[in-house]
């Protein structure tokens, strides 16, 4: 891991188009500003991990019989179309 010491308003560059700037240093945390091209996704790690885990679970549990049985046993709402 590359380790930097940065002060407020200082930045690091990653590759061509990615810049991370220290906006504020507080007691509770460091506020960072990330500039990146649109095609580069930038996420909070814990949010990404949560959704990644849910996706993996969904891919494992889409045994069609099980999911369909669950849906059929308790029919979904039919409202809300076309509003």
């Amino acid at each position: 891991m590359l380790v930097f010491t940065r002060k407020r308003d200082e930045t690091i560059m990653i590759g061509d188009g990615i810049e991370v700037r220290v906006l504020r240093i507080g007691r509770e945390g460091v506020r960072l500003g990330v500039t990146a091209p649109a095609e580069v996704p930038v996420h909070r790690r814990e949010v990404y991990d949560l959704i990644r885990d849910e996706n993996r679970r969904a891919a494992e549990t889409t045994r069609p019989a099980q999911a369909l049985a669950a849906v059929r046993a308790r029919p979904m709402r039919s409202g809300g179309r076309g509003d």
Partner: protein
Amino acid sequence: MTPVTNAHADAEAPRTEIDTPFGRFLVAPHERVRFPSGIPGFEDCREFVLLSPGDLGALSCLQSLAGPPASFLVVDPRHVLPQYRCALGTTDLMRLGAGADTLLLWLAIVSTDEAGRAYANLRAPIVINPERMLGYQVVPHNSLYPLRQPLASD
């Protein structure tokens, strides 16, 4: 998407045969949706097709075509929660090659638990721009919608 039984009818487009948990399908090139960064946990799945076999009812199947085989059941989030609203930022729209007026296709991934109950992920919907056949999964950090919304309405 065409059932395999029609395979002999059209020899023009180079279609790909794929096996899914819901049977075998023929996929034409224009039916492929590109996901440039995959989806979280399936970053190498860069292409999907949306299949709607009749026996799935309101559900569809989002099946990967490139990368590891992955298959998701999906549902229109408004079918689960009629008042569902999710706003996309300019970066999201840019990523989809969409303008503010572009009609987008929204899908919530369905999962089941050990007890067989089904849930829809309303927090991180899949969004597809049909005009560009581009898709990605929104990863919002401040959504109030649940990761597991029960599919049943009581």
